[in-house]
């Protein structure tokens, strides 16, 4: 018996290495699977203004409210689960969550590993510098000599690397902000929606501000590859844009300017 366990463990180790490659389309309908169990499990991180907790501990935000509405349209309950962002594909494939709905930038890596909805929000990678020095770094060219901190594997890292600027990859976008605040890096590159919520007056980083826009990109929702939930969500987005409920929700969380017409 123990030998079998040991063998299983070795196999598991090997298989996990390949798990990232072996994507299998679900034989059965994902929509049916979610309806049968009666719950849509939404993988999120704490990320204002998309997904965050209100004073009584309930998940709110533009993404959270839309996810709740989508679940209601399917006739199932919504359940939010905080995940480690690095493991989002594992979480999907192991069915611990049914979708990733958390201001996820639609990069080529993301669209390859998941079935993604149509984009619903515009985003950009922006340069974060101390407010006192902001005047000198308004364009991407003027930032050439700065030492950047970027989230490893992020769209920001890709942009900075493409420009040929020197950068330090760190654990998260928040950690990149910390680098600038602590002075260990000159600048950081993060999502503009996050920047709007996290830097500037009235935030934890009042001394920082954002300047140059390095690119523009879009947010989407990710499902398991081959999932028919993607089409269901696209239909839902179109309907709620048409009846104005999506715009109303965006207004609530101050992301109207970034909303993409469905």
């Amino acid at each position, binding site marked *: 018996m*123990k030998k079998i366990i040991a063998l299983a463990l070795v196999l598991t180790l090997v298989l996990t290495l390949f798990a990232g490659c072996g994507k299998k389309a679900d034989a059965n309908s994902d929509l049916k699977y979610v309806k049968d169990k009666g*719950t849509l499990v939404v993988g999120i991180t704490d990320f204002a203004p998309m997904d965050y907790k209100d004073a009584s501990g309930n998940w709110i935000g533009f993404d959270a409210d839309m996810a709740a509405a989508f679940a209601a349209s399917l006739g199932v309950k919504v359940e939010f*689960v*905080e995940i*480690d962002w690095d493991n989002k594909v*594992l979480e999907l494939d192991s069915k611990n969550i049914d979708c990733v709905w958390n201001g996820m930038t639609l990069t080529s890596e993301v669209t390859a590993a998941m079935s993604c909805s149509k984009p619903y929000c515009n985003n950009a990678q922006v340069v974060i510098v101390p407010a006192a020095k902001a005047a000198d770094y308004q364009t991407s060219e003027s930032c050439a000599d700065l030492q950047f901190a970027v989230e490893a594997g992020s769209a920001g890292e890709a942009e900075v690397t493409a420009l040929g600027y020197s950068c330090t990859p760190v654990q998260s976008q928040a950690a990149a902000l*910390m680098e600038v605040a602590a002075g260990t890096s000159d600048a950081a590159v993060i999502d503009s929606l996050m920047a709007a919520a*996290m830097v500037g007056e009235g935030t934890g*980083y009042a001394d920082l501000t954002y300047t140059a826009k390095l690119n523009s990109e879009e947010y989407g929702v990710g499902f398991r590859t081959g999932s028919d939930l993607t089409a269901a969500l696209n239909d839902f987005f179109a309907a709620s844009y048409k009846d104005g409920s999506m715009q109303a929700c965006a207004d609530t969380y101050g992301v109207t300017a970034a909303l993409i017409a469905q």
Partner: protein
Amino acid sequence: MTFLQQLPIVFGALNVGFLQTLKLFGITLVGALPLGLIIAFGSMSRFRPLSIVTRFFVWIIRGTPLMIQLLIIFYFPSMALGQPIWGSGENGRFAASAAAFIINYACYFSEIYRGGIQSIPVGQLEAGQVLGMTRGQIFVRIMLLQVIKRIVPPVSNEIITLVKDTALARIIALQEIIWAGTAFLKGSQGISGQVWPLFFTALYYLVFSGALTLLFGWVEKRLDYFRG
């Protein structure tokens, strides 16, 4: 938000996280201390296949990072079966973390037990035998306390390591105290970019491991009445 307004929010979240840390710590000890003894007996078994397989298993577990074991235990069975096996939400993550920690620590404990048992002079066993004691009596009445005395220092070392290792469970998003601390760095409950809550978690660990150190010191003192 002023610092004084942030304090109750941060402490509330850290306390919730620390409770999860304590739960994982406690259940790991409750499971791993006895399971370690079973594994130790397996690895010392005179039935060769059993001892070989057990030692192989211990080698695998001790030879791979706990972080990888957590990922495998939580994600792999569900991927293989196409069905989440650990239950939904925080409870499922806790169950998977507990399983991984119990298995991992049981293997470490088993090696400490084995070393402790094998370090007792064979004369103690033989003295019990010639006095007509059964194997069970010899283990319980003669060996056990001597073994415990010898293994208290290494076991307490391992237990204090466990306190801090519980933080690894955040890899499968178990919301223990480090997770709770980093949340305020990323932004949570209206507080963002604050690193002090994360640094503050160290204080929780420090106080808790301090209490454990005192406890183990007391146990060692209690066993000081004999030598050998």
